[in-house]
């Protein structure tokens, strides 16, 4: 286990170094002068020069790079030009909002995805299987933000069951928080249900064909008992990796879905920075999300090794 951990951590560290280098290099993709791109055409040369120096663009490339690594090692992602405050502070302030949205969506997607996958696998090649697979494919083809708008139209505007947007902090009123989060989490989760259902079905089909399941069947155990108690625990192991894969899509999706429901998470911060070309927020936000994604995947991989000894011995 120790050897596995060291190898996995070293791999994650290397990727982290590259990820931060790429985030740093983003500013060099800006055509022309990033400072001039942020300010409008009426800005005086002095104003542009001042912003250039604030962004550190007047330094040489190695100086800028060492400065960037020095700063991010101490957790400083720079200053937002527009908000005039620390990017790290703004991101950390919004992280719980985005993470709770993604977590709720994940819970929803895993529950329905696994359930649908089991139903499909148990009824392999019969109509429930085909219905699940068709719905799953349809789910994978729907744009999440559009689904969100349609949900608002149906459940908020027409039926008036749930709020169309806005956000109440959990600490203020857990009930209001949940009411506000149901539609966004459904929107975000539904798109992933299809993906998880497909994986769960494949994993379940594989497990159901194992000898020990046939033995349990032959002993005369109830079918439901065999599926849920004997097959499901082993079928869930590959599904664990899916959570790692899906977390990236959920974080990205949350960025978009936050726009639809006016939720003040990291997504709104990043999208706000797009229009104003607030480069430190774009760089910092992208790096921050990648770090969160890498951390989630590291945890998933370690859990995977804990539950399945074959992984750590490989």
């Amino acid at each position, binding site marked *: 286990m120790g050897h596995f951990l060291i190898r996995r951590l070293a791999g994650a560290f290397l990727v982290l170094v590259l990820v931060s280098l790429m985030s740093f290099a983003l500013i060099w993709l800006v055509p022309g002068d990033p400072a001039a791109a942020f300010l409008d055409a009426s800005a005086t040369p002095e104003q542009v020069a001042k912003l250039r120096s604030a962004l550190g663009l007047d330094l040489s490339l190695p100086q800028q790079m060492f400065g960037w690594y020095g700063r991010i090692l101490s957790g400083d992602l720079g200053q937002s030009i527009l908000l005039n405050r620390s990017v790290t502070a703004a991101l950390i302030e919004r992280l719980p909002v985005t993470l709770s949205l993604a977590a709720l969506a994940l819970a929803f997607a895993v529950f329905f995805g696994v359930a649908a996958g089991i139903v499909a696998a148990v009824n392999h090649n019969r109509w429930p299987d085909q219905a699940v697979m068709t719905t799953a494919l349809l789910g994978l083809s729907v*744009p999440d933000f559009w689904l969100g708008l349609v949900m608002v139209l149906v459940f908020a505007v027409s039926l008036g069951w749930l709020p169309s947007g806005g956000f109440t902090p959990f600490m203020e009123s857990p009930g209001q928080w949940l009411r506000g989060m149901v539609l966004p989490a459904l929107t975000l989760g539904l798109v992933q249900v299809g993906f998880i259902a497909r994986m769960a079905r494949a994993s379940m089909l594989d497990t159901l064909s194992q000898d020990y399941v046939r033995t349990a069947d032959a002993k005369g155990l109830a079918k439901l008992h065999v599926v849920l108690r004997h097959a499901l625990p082993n079928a869930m192991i590959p599904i664990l990796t899916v959570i790692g894969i899906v977390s990236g899509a959920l974080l990205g999706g949350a960025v978009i879905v936050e726009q639809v429901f006016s939720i003040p998470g990291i997504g709104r911060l990043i999208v706000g920075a797009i229009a104003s070309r607030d480069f430190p927020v774009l760089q910092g936000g992208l790096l921050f999300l990648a770090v969160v994604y890498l951390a989630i995947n590291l945890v998933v991989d370690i859990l995977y090794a804990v539950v399945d000894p074959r992984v750590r011995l490989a």
Partner: protein
Amino acid sequence: MQGTPLVGRALWGRLLRNRSFVIGAVLVFVMVAVALAADWLTPFDPLKSNVRARLAAPSAAHWFGTDHFGRDILSRVMIGARISLAIGAFTVVLAGIAGTLCGAIAGYFYHLDQPIMRIMDALMAFPSIVLAMVVSAVLGASLTNVVIALAIATTPHTARIVRASVLIEKEQEYIAAARSIGVGEWTILFKHVLRNVAGPLIVRLTYVFAIAVLAEAALSFVGAGPPPPAASFGSIIAQGRDFMREAPWITVFPGLAIIACVLGLNLLGDGLRDVLDPRLKF
């Protein structure tokens, strides 16, 4: 690929018997035909406003209704198909070239494997939609930059798939045979190995097309898509958002058009996967 690669009529026969492939191909063909013939098919000028027909509900004259400028939504969706599909197609070309090169070189040349694939891993650590959004915003919104942004986001996974196939293919005996008669490494890679990884690559690129159509819509929705007056699916939805209550059709119809395109491409991909790359079936 297991067994002899399918070619010619045998391949077509298998594809035409695959339901996913046929339904997907028909959907994609219809969307592409509409996009190509949009200039002749549009009932109205998609850019011409008509204040008297502002926010008109779907009717015999305007099948999909009109927007706040009185522009015909059906005509705008038809032209939108052209822009969205063009972005998807160019992304496929760019990600296909970049992904094949990176994946093939990493898979074939042992000492280049680690450096290339670690860079791909790093790119995959960014949520792809956010990566595309930020790259497009940093480069400045234009059709070309949206394609570049989407290609950067879809190349790493493509490279991974090509690399995996190359790793298997390069151990085959015919490669050793080619090497033993003095064929150069690059010739072996491009003339022999790559020809045999075409199956998984074509399947992946079909999905890339679908991902690009979805991602372009999301990019346009958050304001990082192609600038106006280009009306892609995503930008029509974004404009319709402010009129959701009084004119939901502005938002609903382009969304259905996206679903038709992406569903068609996904079905096409599933069908191609079943026939070209049976190992991946699940």
